[in-house]
């Protein structure tokens, strides 16, 4: 069951590849947006790097597989992975049911705050998904 919403929370930043980022002090929590999970359909597998791995800004972060399609995930920041959402191994559907909450993907240590300025604001991301939905 997917969450039928294109909700774009005001307190997050977004990548053009449909990841969200929530700054939590020196850390950033990352997930995929409600729009993205709605497009993917039921998520059945998420492949993420292990804690300690280095990720690069808008470099491939992992893969997410839904019933219909395999998609690449991209990291909205450069840094070291400090935590991955272990619950997704048994319950990948959390990405669908609670994309901004229990369906988070991982936590990365911020290394370059200037990258945050390259991400989309909620208004800019909303404009992007409205364009994509209209295609």
């Amino acid at each position: 069951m997917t969450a039928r919403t294109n909700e774009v929370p005001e307190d997050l930043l977004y990548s053009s590849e449909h990841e969200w980022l929530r700054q939590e002090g020196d850390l950033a929590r990352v997930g995929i947006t409600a729009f993205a999970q709605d497009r993917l359909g039921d998520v059945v597998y998420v492949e993420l790097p292990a804690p300690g791995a280095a990720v690069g800004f808008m470099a491939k972060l992992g893969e997410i597989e839904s019933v219909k399609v395999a998609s690449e995930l991209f990291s909205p920041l450069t840094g070291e992975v400090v935590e991955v959402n272990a619950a997704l191994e048994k319950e990948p559907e959390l990405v669908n049911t609670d994309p901004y909450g229990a369906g988070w993907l991982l936590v990365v240590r911020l290394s370059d705050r200037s990258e945050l300025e390259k991400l989309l604001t909620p208004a800019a991301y909303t404009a992007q998904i409205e364009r994509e939905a209209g295609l």
Partner: protein
Amino acid sequence: MTAVQSTPLAGQHAALSAHFGEFAGWRMPLWYGGAVGEHLAVRKAAGVFDVSHMGRFGVEGKDAAALLSASFSRDAASLAPAASGYALACNAAGGIIDDLIVYRLDAARFRVICNAANAGRIGALLEASRSTWPAVAVADSLAGTVLIAVQGPQAVAAVAALVPGAAAIGRRGCGEVALGGATCFLARTGYTGEDGFEIMLAAAAGEALFERLLAAGVTPCGLAARDSLRLEAALPLYGVDMDDATSPWEAGLGWALALEHDFPGRDALIASKAAARRRLTCIVGDGQGVFRSHQLVYHDEEPVGQVSSGGFSPLLERSIAMAYLPRALAPVGTALTIDIRGRRVAAHTVKRPFYTSSRAGAAP
């Protein structure tokens, strides 16, 4: 290229907030709430699918049985009234033009339901056969009609409660009943591995029946669930698991070949039986990741085939696949790996199919 077509139920799908996708030139619902939930609803209760994109023909006349027998791999003349038979349309080399079901209503009236992508080819094939049997009427029934499939352990009861006369139709049977003043074609067949009905009726009556089924608690299901259901049941899909170059013997469809009667490809099929070197084999994943079409299958580090159909099985909660493998590797328990975008995932062969309903009977 013609424009993408929509079925008469497009308004219902939109009202249900369906996710649409294009399939064989049709804009069809892929899922509504979610494909996994829809899949499980069909396994555990009942689901309804709009399959109005599928080709459907009426073939009627004194010689209709002879025409159909001469066209397809099953001998339509041997079908009892109110029975159906799965059949192949083969080319002269024995390759598969389409797979379809022939339904016999009575001595002289038949229905044929085939894949959407091949409706044009089957229509042309039937029309061409009329040169030998000009008195047989071939009617394309697609325009103005709806075809819905109601599938699952509670499907027969759900349909019987809304369609008087449905309960009298047994497994793989067919018949016509009156519904709302119009004729409704009912077939106790499907493509999910479950018991249920496929129902063809006029568009307006079909819209009403679809809505009454929803009101009765039947889950609307899209083509994504239909695909995962048929894969669990190891029912091959035309264009994915088989095509014009596929040997029915290798596809495991030898049971659908009635070689005692003459049909296109028969001689080639008799000659090629012993030459079948591969077999469409069921494979279950032992690791993480979802198998997809065209991924390479390895045994002892040697590439031995590629996935024809793959996907996630909501019932087994594992990735499953079908692939044409050398016969020597088909036995249950053969260790394999499958390349998922550069990552080798362990897998092993299992008995076909992955899933058999206790109610639906063994033969596909």
